[in-house]
């Protein structure tokens, strides 16, 4: 009402309105941004009416009925925290309890480094937020540094370091011919990078290839990175989700810690706790001593403050409720293993089906690779045929999300792949 009165001309000066009306938009020259390649796949899948359609583009876990899953331990945790005392701001560094438990997962339950308080750690907005915070920190405190990113990698890694204005280079990683690791070339790139470069490493279950170094290979990678004084930054988005055992999935990190690297880690609970949309994660940076860790943490907070002030509380509460309760934690470990085992089972089934069909190609890589994704080796043209002829949706780089494979569709999928590759 007050607005209408005000608009009735007595207060409004019409000439000012006219001035505004004839101005064109400031955003005329803004170009429409390219569509996100992965989201486009899901959109197309949803629009497809075929009853046979299969979505193996999705990067989120599905059960054997193709349904998203909320873990039982998560439901229980949510029951406990509902009607919580308050929704007050967390500190800038997030939930202290959640961070403590999260560090134990990455660095080890009884890690000396944790006891010595040498780790600067803050709650972050899942893996993306942790990587971004680190990239901003790297830019601010090592402004002349650059980041080496594996080829291929999760597409958003490039966006993150670019927006942080850290120059990026790439290092060899995936070997298309063997559908495995291009180890020699990777080591060469590590050796040839200028001393003190930053290297982005996938701790386990490499996205998108599913190709991980072996333990021996990790030791050698660690050795060469150390020789060059490089900084190792681990993106660990799948701990527990890869082998089913969080300790096993942290092996690469533990090797680097043993070798004395001062590493950084981005951890995410999106997949291994199914907390995707809660945006819960953690960024940690191992320092020389407690004093430095305090300094680094304070600087990370200085970067978080002008980005979002403090991180969201709900997801952090779920995590800390689960991890600090021995029974809930045990339940979680069981549920993570179930997810990982189902994926491993589907890998075996898909490969088995393809071999049974008499495919001329080798499909060993399906079971060699690990984690949510399989880099099938399918060409974009073959992928298009899968979509157009068989209503199977995946990203055009041939990445198959094994989470979308079920006992109900694995034969159909194998048949279709066989058809387009025979």
């Amino acid at each position, binding site marked *: 009402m007050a607005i209408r009165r005000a608009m009735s001309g007595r207060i409004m000066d019409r000439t*000012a309105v006219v001035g505004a009306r004839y101005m064109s938009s400031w955003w005329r020259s803004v170009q429409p941004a390219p569509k996100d390649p992965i989201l486009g796949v899901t959109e197309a899948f949803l629009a497809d009416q075929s009853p046979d359609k299969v979505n193996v583009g999705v990067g989120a876990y599905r059960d054997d009925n193709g349904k998203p899953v909320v873990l039982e331990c998560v439901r229980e945790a949510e029951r406990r925290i*509902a009607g919580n005392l*308050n929704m007050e701001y967390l500190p800038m560094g997030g939930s202290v309890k959640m961070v403590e438990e999260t560090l134990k997962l990455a660095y080890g339950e009884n890690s000396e480094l944790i006891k010595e308080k040498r780790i600067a750690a803050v709650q972050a*907005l899942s893996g993306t937020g942790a990587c971004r915070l680190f990239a901003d920190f790297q830019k601010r405190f090592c402004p002349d540094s650059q980041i080496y990113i594996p080829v291929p990698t999760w597409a958003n890694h490039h966006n*993150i370091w670019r927006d942080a204005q850290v120059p990026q280079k790439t290092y060899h990683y995936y070997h298309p011919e063997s559908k495995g690791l291009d180890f020699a070339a990777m080591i060469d790139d590590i050796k040839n990078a200028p001393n003190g470069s930053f290297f982005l490493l996938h701790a386990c279950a490499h996205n998108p290839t599913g190709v991980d170094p072996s333990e021996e290979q990790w030791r050698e990678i660690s050795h060469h990175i150390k020789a060059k004084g490089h900084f190792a930054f681990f993106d660990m988005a799948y701990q527990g989700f890869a082998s089913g055992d969080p300790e096993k999935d942290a092996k690469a990190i533990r090797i680097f810690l043993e070798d004395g690297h001062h590493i950084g880690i981005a951890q995410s609970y999106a997949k291994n706790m199914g907390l995707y949309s809660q945006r819960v994660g953690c960024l940690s940076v191992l320092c020389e001593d407690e004093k430095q860790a305090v*300094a680094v943490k304070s600087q990370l907070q200085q970067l978080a403050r002008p980005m979002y002030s403090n991180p969201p509380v*709900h997801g952090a509460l779920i995590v800390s409720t689960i991890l600090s309760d021995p029974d809930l934690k045990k339940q979680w470990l069981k549920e993570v293993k179930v997810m990982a085992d189902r994926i491993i089972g589907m890998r075996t089934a898909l490969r088995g089906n393809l071999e049974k069909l008499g495919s001329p190609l080798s499909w060993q890589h399906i079971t060699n690779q690990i984690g949510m994704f399989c880099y099938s080796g399918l060409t974009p043209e073959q992928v298009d045929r899968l979509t157009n002829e068989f209503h199977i949706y995946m990203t055009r780089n041939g990445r198959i999300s094994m989470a979308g494979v079920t006992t109900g569709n694995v034969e159909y999928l194998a048949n279709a792949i066989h058809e387009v590759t025979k």
Partner: protein
Amino acid sequence: MRPEFASPSSSSSSSADRRLNALVRHLATASMVSQTAVAFSPTSGFHGDSVFSHVVRAPEDPILGVTVAYNKDPSPVKLNLGVGAYRTEEGKPLVLNVVRKAEQMLLNDKSRVKEYLPIVGIAEFNKLSAKLIFGADSPAIRENRVTTVQCLSGTGSLRVGAEFLARHYHQKTIYIPQPTWGNHPKVFTLAGLSVKTYRYYDPTTRGMNFQGLLEDLGSAPSGSIVLLHACAHNPTGVDPTLQQWEQIRQLMRSKALLPFFDSAYQGFASGNLDEDAQSIRMFVADGGECFVAQSYAKNMGLYGERVGALSVVCRAANVASKVESQLKLVIRPMFSNPPIHGASIVVTILKDSNMFNEWTIELKAMADRIISMRKQLFDALRARGTPGDWSHIIKQIGMFTFTGLNSKQVEFMTREYHIYMTSDGRISMAGLSSKTVPHLADAIHAAVTRMS
């Protein structure tokens, strides 16, 4: 880049031992390593320290530091007036009943999953938030000229908007009022904008320096971005009158200055949602463009859930759609997609007319309690005959009062009366209760009469 290494003497012996041990262990497995000898570069990190050894500890956040000091104080009469969060008469944080209800509904809905939200967040949340701030009948909404994206509360909305502006807008300078929320300059600077100020608060009147504001905005280069507090200015509590808003609008439109509204207190200031949105709606009504950062931290008490929205009002629908696509490119490398919990609570409340009404009642109750605290404090100072004009306490609006006390007086009040507030003399009225007003009045009285 050559990593900097501290001299060996600065390393603790235990860390040197650790490195030696690592070396020994590594040499023991050397047979597994490739045969070619590895030449250790003399500048390599192997014997060196962290590449972040030079990082110094950042200063404490001035506002958080207040709470830290308060927590340490053992006094039974201590009062925390630094916190920018609502407190009840009992001094407790508050979760609104309607929020509890909404949370329970979400919990009971077994069909709910935790899948990633779209990059722009919950579509319904965005629509409802736009309606809330612009009005259900807003021409901008009707004409599809608004793009709204879910962000992390007010801070996140400001940051995403500022990043977009730094990339796509021809003018990279933003004018912020003097004073303003301490985090504003940091948000804009890190987003890539350069920050200038415009006069706003007049310490002599404890009101608006309107002439100064008009002069400063009048001399800003055409197209500059201007940050405006939609209502309940933080930290001063001094808002323009409707007449003054109209003058500001005319001036800004005539100079093609781009308004960027920070709306953190809608409904919390006057107790009425529409009233508190008038400034924004005035600008939208003239058909021009603007940015709006919305927060549900205070008015729904959702602080830690980080719920907010950024709206960009454009002149045309196709422009709004292009802008949205570019906002997504800002968001994706920052946090990919926003957190679901708080926004789901907001949707549950806003879309249900009964719950919406409940909310407006609880909101008004919070605003009324604050207004009542203002009155009580004003009366208490008058009753004590405290020298000075204290009418600004009841003229200012929103959570904060800019008392006009100087840092020496503030220090005195902390030391002698255990009153905790920011050194700029800002007090959070939300931290007061009928029981504690007398103590604060005593403290102010003592500070004013014994310290200048």
